[in-house]
C-alpha cells in the first residue's frame, strides 16, 4: 500500500487507452483536437451519452455529432481510496445539454468535491490511445 497522500494534493490517475470502434471514431478524432462531441438525435432532438449511432430514446438512426463546451455540474462522485497509485475520483457530470457522463475528476483535492459543483471538460492523455474527457472545477 502507498503512503496516505497529502489531502490537499490534486488527484491524478493514469488512464488506459479507450476502446475505439467504427461507431465512435469521430468522437476520438475530435478528442485529439481538444473538441468534446456529444450525439444528438435529429427526429426527437434529445442529446444522449455515451454516443451511439442509434438514438436510445427513439431508436432513430439519424443521430449527429455536436460540439459541446463540456460544462455541467457534479451529480455524484466517490473518491476511491483502495488504489495503489493514490486516491482518485469517479463520478457523473450532468452536462448542460442534459445527459450525465461518467468520468474522473482532476485538478481538485479528494476533499474538494461536492455534488452540484460546476465543472468543465478537459482532455487527459492515455496510455497509447486518444485522450479522454475528464472534468475539473470550472
Amino acid at each position, binding site marked *: 500500500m502507498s503512503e496516505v497522500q497529502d489531502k490537499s494534493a490534486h488527484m491524478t490517475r493514469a488512464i488506459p487507452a*479507450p476502446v475505439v*470502434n467504427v461507431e465512435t471514431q469521430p468522437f476520438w478524432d475530435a478528442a485529439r483536437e481538444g473538441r468534446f462531441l456529444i450525439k444528438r438525435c435529429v427526429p426527437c432532438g*434529445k442529446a444522449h451519452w455515451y454516443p451511439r449511432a442509434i438514438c*436510445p430514446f427513439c431508436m432513430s438512426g439519424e443521430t449527429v455529432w455536436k460540439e459541446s463546451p463540456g460544462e455541467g455540474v457534479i451529480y455524484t462522485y*466517490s473518491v*476511491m481510496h483502495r488504489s495503489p497509485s493514490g486516491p482518485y475520483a*469517479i463520478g457523473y457530470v450532468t452536462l448542460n445539454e442534459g445527459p450525465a457522463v461518467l468520468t474522473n475528476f482532476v485538478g481538485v483535492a479528494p476533499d474538494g468535491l461536492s455534488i452540484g459543483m460546476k465543472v468543465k471538460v478537459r482532455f487527459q492523455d492515455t496510455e497509447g490511445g486518444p485522450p*479522454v474527457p475528464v472534468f475539473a472545477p470550472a
Partner: protein
Amino acid sequence: MSIKGKAYIMGAFEHPTRDAPDKSTPQLHAECAIGALADAGLSQDDIDGYFCAGDAPGFGGLSMVDYMGLTNVRHLDSTETGGSSYLLHVGHAAQAIAEGKCSVALITLAGRPRQARGGGGRGGGGGEPAPEAGFENIYGGSTHNTYGMCAMRHMYEYGTTSEQLAWIKVAASHHAQWNEHAFLKDVVTVEQVVNSRMIADPLHLLDCCVVTDGGGALLVTSPEVARSLNRPKVKIMGAGEAPKGPRGGLDLDLTHSGAVWSGPRAFEEAGVKPADIKYASIYDSFTITVLMQLEDLGFCEKGQGGKFVSDGNLISGVGKLPFNTDGGGLCNNHPTNRGGITKVIEAVRQLRGEAHPKVQVPNCDLAIAHGTGGSLGTRHGSATVIMEREG
C-alpha cells in the same frame, strides 16, 4: 400465464467452503449439485433442466451438463445478470416447469475468486467489448466506487448517514455469529463500521461484502415431483425481473434500483404485500445495496431507508423485518462475487424452519429473496422471488 404455485424449491445447498485452493470451479458446481440432490432426495437422472450463469466455466451450460453427466436435460438457460442471475433462474425455472419443458431444474453457482489476485471478475460476456467500454471502463470504476456513487447521492438527496448504513452490517453480523460456516463471525458495532478504513467514499471497509470461494445449488421442481419428496415444500409464488441502466444519461437516477419494477411484478403475481413478508433475503454486496432495495421493494418510503434499518430493525428476534439471517454477503458468504443463490438458500431454510434456532423467524410462511447483479451505479439486473411454505 402466471407461475404462482406452479413450481417448488425442493433442494437447496450452500457449499461450506469459503476458501478452495484444492478444488476446481466445475468440481465446486458439481459438489453443489450433489448437495442439492441429497437435500431434496432426488438423483442425477431426475434432472431435466439446467440453469447457470457467467461463473460456469467453458461453454457454460454445455460444459457443465457434460461434466456432471446430466443426460436427461431437455431445457437449458444461461441468463446472465451477474450476481442476481440465480434469482432470475428461479423465476425462469418456474416458467419452464409451468409450461412442461422440464420437471426438475438444477441451478448452480460456484467459483474461486480467492485463488485469483485481485478478487476475480464478474464473469460472463466473452467476445466484443461492451458498447459502453470506451466511455466508461477507462475511469477506474469498480463495484466499490460505483456503489459509493449511489450512496453519496442517496445521502445528498435524503440525508442518509454512514451510521444508518452501518446498522445493516451490524444486523448481518448479529446473525453471522450463529453460522459456523460464516467467513466473518464477529459481532460488530456501528462505531466499528464507521471507523473502519474508507474504501470508496462514503463506503467503509465494513460496508463491503466478503470475497469468498464456494457456491450453491437449488432444485426447482414440478408440483408432482414436490409431492413425491419427503421435504417441506417451498412454493414459488411470484417472480419479477428488470434491467436498469443510465438510459442515455437523461434524468440519471442513482437512488433507485430496478427493484422498483421487479418488486411490484413479483408482489402482484404472488398476490401479497410487503407487509405480509415474514423474512427477507436482500442482496448485500454493500450496505447501500440493502437500503436502496428495501425502499424500492416498498418496505418503507423512498428516502426513509436509513431510519428503517436503524436500531436493529433487521435483526431476527429484535426488529420488524429479519433479513439475511445467515449473515448474508456482508459476513457469511458471497461466493465468486455473486450473492444471488445464497439469498434463495437462506429463504428456503427459513421457510422450512431449518435456519439456526437463534435466528429462525417464528411461523415463517412467506419470504422474499431479492438481488441486484452488475452495478447499481451503472447498469444492473434486479430480480425478486416470493416464496411460501406449503402445509
